[in-house]
């Protein structure tokens, strides 16, 4: 399988990724879900087993698709940048884009498709505004490499980084309503909702957004 775009933390008790558990909490049980860039199907199987969803996936790597097939997950080998256009409107209750938007060629177009195909969209991404990223770039003068973002600039699959503030702005631009927004700190734990945006943008390693078409 192609390497994951980021290396998020896992919950030691269940073995599930913390951001996946957070996403799973946002999904109504029994709903129809499309996971775009579903990798080996870890999130889809979590959603199937815990939330009884009718889940589908798109994955670019053949190894990922085969891993999903072996889990009994209906996953299509395809590319978020080109294949979302083929899905009908309102086909899913939720379309999930987990740690993938920063690896797409046209994040805005992809986000618009998510909101068209799904009644709701869930997007999670690494926050490029995190203080460690800012230190790398601002003080060290180097492209950031963190535990969460382990790639050199020349071999990274991540070509469209954004900060939490940037993403909020994009949501406004495409007319998405934010139903829920969560920032995960370096420990993978949700930060207090009462904190202002600038704190999230500085201390959040990841942003997870539940969006709805306006």
């Amino acid at each position, binding site marked *: 399988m192609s390497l994951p775009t980021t290396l998020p933390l896992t919950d030691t008790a269940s073995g599930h990724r913390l951001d996946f558990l957070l996403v799973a909490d946002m999904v109504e049980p029994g709903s*129809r879900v499309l996971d775009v860039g579903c990798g080996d199907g870890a999130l889809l199987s979590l959603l199937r087993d815990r939330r009884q969803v009718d889940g*589908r996936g798109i994955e670019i790597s*053949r190894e990922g*698709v*085969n*891993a*999903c*097939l*072996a*889990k*009994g*997950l*209906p*996953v*299509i*080998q*395809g590319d978020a940048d080109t294949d979302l256009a*083929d*899905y*009908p409107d309102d*086909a899913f209750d939720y379309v999930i884009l987990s740690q993938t938007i920063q690896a797409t060629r046209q994040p805005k177009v992809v986000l618009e498709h998510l909101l068209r195909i799904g009644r709701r969209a869930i997007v999670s991404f690494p926050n490029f505004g995190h203080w460690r990223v800012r230190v790398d770039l601002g003080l060290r003068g180097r492209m950031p490499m963190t535990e969460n973002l382990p790639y050199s600039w020349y071999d990274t699959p991540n070509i469209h980084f954004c900060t939490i503030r940037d993403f909020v702005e994009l949501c406004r631009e495409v007319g998405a309503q934010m139903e829920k927004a969560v920032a995960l700190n370096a420990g993978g734990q949700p930060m207090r909702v009462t904190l202002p945006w600038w704190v999230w943008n500085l201390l959040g390693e990841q942003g997870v957004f539940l969006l709805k078409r306006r």
Partner: protein
Amino acid sequence: MRFGTDEPLMMDAGIALAPWQIAYQTYGTLNAEKSNAVLICHALTGDQHVANDNPVTGKPGWWLTMVGPGRPVDTDRFFVICANVIGGCMGTTGPASINPATGQPYALDFPVVTIPDMVRAQAALIDRLGIEKLFCVVGGSMGGMQVLQWAAAYPDRVFAALPIATAARHSAQNIAFHEVGRQAVMADPEWRGGRYLNEGTRPSKGLAVARMGAHITYLSEVALHRKFGRNFQDRAAPTFSFDADFQIESYLRYQGIAFVERFDANSYLYVTRAMDYFDIAAEHGGSLAKAFKGTPTRFCVISFTSDWLFPTSDSRAIVHALNAAAASVAFVEVESDKGHDAFLLEEPEMFAAARGFIDAAARVQGIA
């Protein structure tokens, strides 16, 4: 399996074919719940001998890589059925069969066959075997067309469908290739207007040319180059003649000759025609998605990167329609340079996908 005059096969051409028969092979054991039956659908020139030595050619079964003990279609777990298509020449009623009305071979009096006719004949066989629902229907190329037709016509009788290297409609280019093949057969004076069996002749040359042409379409340029290049056949230099100087020529001639030994020329006309006519969407107001609307069947579609006869775009069209129909569908494009024939060859990625899909479906169905 024989069907009498009281059980005609209702064909798309508007003819009730009776009596008729369908030749088939089975492997493995049907379980008590009759829930483990897998139907294998063969391609244009295939037959029912999918996993046993072919009685005509003496060669091993045509899909031993996919079907057999421990294979993705595991005959230790599943009851596997494979039947010769209607219009074929390996025991199922076809143009070489005797027309009861005349006592002579049907020849061109045999009604034109369609893919839905083939599937209807298989359904009659499955009924006769006492199987209500197939666990899985699997096939490549024309076999894949039958898989799609099964799912479209009998959605409640197919739990899982595995169409490989196929299309929901035959392309203009493919119809064109078939037409060239048919014209080669019919241009052979020994064809005798299709009545060669009566007249004791055989249009071997025409059928061999048809096969040679078709065989090229099953391969890829890369595969041809790797296998043959511009190598000479048993000679060091060109002979300045029209002898088979090149290995590829010799190979194609051999393929042509070997084919006419085992295949009936009129069957070739009929079965290629069935593929040409195939267009599932046409029967559903031009919408492929409508053909699969509300289908309970789970699908896994597989294509190959170098297949230019049934390219990935054909498979993607199926996948898009199934998505639009909210069907459960998986899709894998296998990286291979072997062309259309890849589905019959050693392709570990295809086996991995098929095995994953079938095993997961078997778990859901509770098949041990």
